[in-house]
């Protein structure tokens, strides 16, 4: 999810019909520059090297989403058919162009939740995150907490508030709660708002997190850390 504004100027995106690193490429309708959907940067054209601002988003079920956000709007569409991904997910093959997987720390089709900070990248396996509810790690020097949202979604926060780095867990209500000694502080798991304890009123910074296959993540971020 990106802000479609480049150098302060609003634009719209089309689909280029081209593929780079097994991911589709968009183009901006002002200059025709190609943009990778995965790393949000222009790879050709007048905007080459520029990056779009990212907006945190989440993938979850419609039932969970409307429970979290009863006032949500939703895009009108035809009723559901079967996902065209069905056999792709089940197969061992990765990608569209037969690239071989360069990183065997996980099977290529493992879903991970990736976070970037500058040139640093780190990912957690989605199934492990959903099982644990929360995982603490680092993206380069940035301390990050990955948070499961509903049964299939994920969010990420910089785990720093009140001038210190936090270890976060989940409490019985699903809220994020500081670990270790002293009086615990609790945070809203979606907004990052401090709800109670010494850090009430503080807010964890939400980070864009991409839910993606491991093979795709590693082809863009070969030096990625794997948190588990």
């Amino acid at each position, binding site marked *: 999810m*990106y802000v*479609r*504004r480049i150098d302060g100027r*609003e634009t*719209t*995106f*089309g*689909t*280029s*019909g*081209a*593929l*780079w690193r*097994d*991911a*589709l490429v*968009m183009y901006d309708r002002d200059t025709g520059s*190609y943009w990778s959907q995965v790393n949000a940067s222009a*790879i*050709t054209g007048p905007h080459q090297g520029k990056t779009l601002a990212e*907006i945190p*988003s989440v*993938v*979850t*079920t*419609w039932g969970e989403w*409307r429970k*979290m*956000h009863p*006032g*949500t*709007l*939703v*895009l*009108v*569409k035809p009723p*559901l058919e079967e*996902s*065209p*991904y069905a*056999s*792709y*997910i089940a197969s061992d093959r990765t*990608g*569209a162009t037969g690239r071989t997987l360069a990183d065997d720390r996980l099977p290529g089709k493992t*879903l991970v939740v990736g976070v970037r900070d500058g040139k640093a990248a780190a990912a957690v396996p*989605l199934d492990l995150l959903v*099982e*644990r*509810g*929360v995982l603490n790690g680092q993206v380069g020097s940035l301390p990050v907490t990955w948070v499961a949202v509903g*049964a*299939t979604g994920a969010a990420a926060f910089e785990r720093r508030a009140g001038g210190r780095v936090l270890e976060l*867990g989940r*409490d*019985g209500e699903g809220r994020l709660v500081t670990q270790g000694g002293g009086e615990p502080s609790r945070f809203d798991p979606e907004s990052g708002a401090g709800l109670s304890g010494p850090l009430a009123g503080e807010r964890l910074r939400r980070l864009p997190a991409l*839910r*993606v*296959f491991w093979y*795709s993540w590693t082809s863009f971020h070969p030096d990625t850390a794997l948190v588990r």
Partner: protein
Amino acid sequence: MRVVARQSRRRIVVKSGAGLAALGLALGGAPAAASAGPLALGAAAQTQTRPADSPQTRPSRPEPEVEYVIDGDPVLKLIPKDTIVPIDAPEMVPAAEAAEFMRDDELVLGVFDGQQARAWSTWHLDRHEVVNDRLGETPIAATW
């Protein structure tokens, strides 16, 4: 203290981040073809892996053209631009009006800015890749 989500193993469906479903639909036309289509761009692979498919009834696969090489990796042009049609004027309705076309177990991509929430079905995004939309005053591109 850790909480394990009760529904944790229920169903984790996929977003590849790569828009391959849309490409498969554009290349093969139908979801059935798409399930193999994005993975088998070469005709040989296609006939070997999908012997049941009659070549006569399938559209011929274009030869990918290398448009650029960026950071050592080719940019492969597979289909004309905007064959996968982006959504430029999204029609959005409140959740209460969505019962006819949204299922509770269907996946959505959602965004919330603290005030407003918007959601797009990932099944629908498979077919369009990009929604040029707006979140309050902010012009956004929901991409898939």
